[in-house]
């Protein structure tokens, strides 16, 4: 979300006369208040805030990814578990950045309760970034891949 977009939102808050506006666009979120309601800061969890399940507009770059073009959609983890990018240790990853995928193409595995759950692409497109490190625990709703639809 660009500064100009945020400026526009601030303008919107001012014009509409509302006191608080929370906007989520993909992984980005902005909350605008026209005043000091610091109590709310009390409750921002220290765990990374997972994103909303429904992807909409593209997200800001994540630590391990390169910049995402503005027309990609996010693939998010549907379960809690451990993320694996390849079928077995040492084998090549299911997908690399730049690969094209079809619906049903396996993108990764999330291990949950000793079960290897294959996560498949739901749309056809090009993998533009991989957002998770191999072997890392993932929460429900964490972003795994960005795919530019074809």
């Amino acid at each position, binding site marked *: 979300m660009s500064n100009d977009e945020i400026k526009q939102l601030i303008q919107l808050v001012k014009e509409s006369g509302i006191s608080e506006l929370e906007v989520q666009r993909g992984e980005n979120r902005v909350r605008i208040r026209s005043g000091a309601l610091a109590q709310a800061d009390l409750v921002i969890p220290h*765990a990374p805030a*997972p994103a909303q399940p429904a992807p909409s507009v593209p997200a800001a770059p994540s630590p391990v990814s390169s910049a995402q073009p503005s027309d990609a959609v996010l693939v998010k983890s549907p*379960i*809690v*578990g451990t993320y694996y990018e390849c079928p077995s240790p040492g084998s090549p990853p299911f997908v690399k950045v730049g690969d094209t995928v079809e619906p049903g193409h396996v993108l990764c595995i999330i291990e949950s309760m000793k079960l290897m759950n294959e996560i498949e692409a739901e749309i056809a497109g090009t993998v533009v970034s991989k957002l998770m490190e191999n072997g890392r625990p993932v929460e*429900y709703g964490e972003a795994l891949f960005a795919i530019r639809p074809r």
Partner: protein
Amino acid sequence: MFHKILIANRGEIALRVICACKDLGIRTVAVYSEADRHSLHVRFADEAICIGPAKSSRSYLDIPAVISAAEITNVDAIHPGYGFLSENAGFAEVCEASGIKFIGPPPPVTRNMGLKQRARAEMREAGVPILPGSEGILQSPEEALDTAERIGYPIMLKASAGGGGRGMRIVRETSELPNLMAQAQSEAQAAFSSPDLYMEKLIEAPRHIEFQVLADEYGNAAVLGERECSIQRRHQKLLEEAPSTAVSPDLRRIMSQRLEEAMIRIGYRNAGTVEFLMDENGDLYFIEVNARIQVEHPVSEAISGIDLVKSQILIAAGHRLEEIVRRPVELNGHAIECRINAENPDTFAPSPGRITGLNLPGGIGVRVDTAAYTDGVIPPYYDSLVAKLITHGKDRSEAIARMRRALDMFVVEGIYTTIPLHQQILRNEDFLAGRLDTKFLSRMGVASARA
């Protein structure tokens, strides 16, 4: 001792378990649904994992999600709180299979207690008085008449497969029985595809009295007195106290001894509650065992001086009861709990929403268990409990005076709560005299209290 515990719950009980863990120096993992990301249990746990969307079947009730969260955070035990997965023996088994200690009774015990006829049989064998009734299904009108004669009218006919009031009939005299039994059978057949009925003695206006038990893993059990939970509407408890005005020291001593023997006999472990109905003569009849910590546990903590949630963790970690409970059990003073729910106090309609103003009462003799805060939200997806307000005094009248004061100083703005209803109860003459039964609220004129 455990290194890290996952709390498979939300709201005030999740925070309650976090407090017990902090007191024991154990690290904590909170799990939360997307609706609860700004909750205090998420804030005050050492780690927090989002396990799913708001709907509890896909988050707090989702066993694989909870177990996966436990695995990726490397906890060595799970505390289930109350509700959700707390009495799910299957969940306890999955914990066991995953090498994670489930803080509660062993799965077979939980399963047996969940099967009510089985629990009744085991308790009867252990010498605990049971609500009189038929031995299983009634085979004929003649058997029904004989059974009713034996246990005495009024009696209640209940559909064996049933629930929700369908296939139920109250019978007050012999002449009514054959006709009402036929009605109940056809209603049961229509509703549950089975005409099977059983019979129980009807107690018209019972007290609801329950005993708190702790049992360790070495065959020792202790009863920490009873709680009076008669103030209910639609079978939901609203105000609880300990001790009960209807239980004499002698009755308490006798019941405690019998229940300790019974719990040892059935292999009970960890914290549990044995529920009874009390009839007009002061006789107690077993109804069920709740194999978990209860919402109203703080009143027992207040009079016994024992932290029950800490005890649950210690017992699960293999500590012996003698390290936790000093014998003989001494109970001091009187405690009351008011459940402050997000509900319209007149209609009981749920009132979720944002808390715009909050003043929690404090001072001498007052305890508040809550996950509420100014600007926090009570979501519509879960139960309506906002806070538990507990007062303790040297006797019942001091506990009542402190509760009245604390209710007066408890301010919640932005949502409706049951505070005004509690204020009304605490001025009621029958309440002040200790004349309680499960019909109390409907007599007081709370329309929707009637089941």
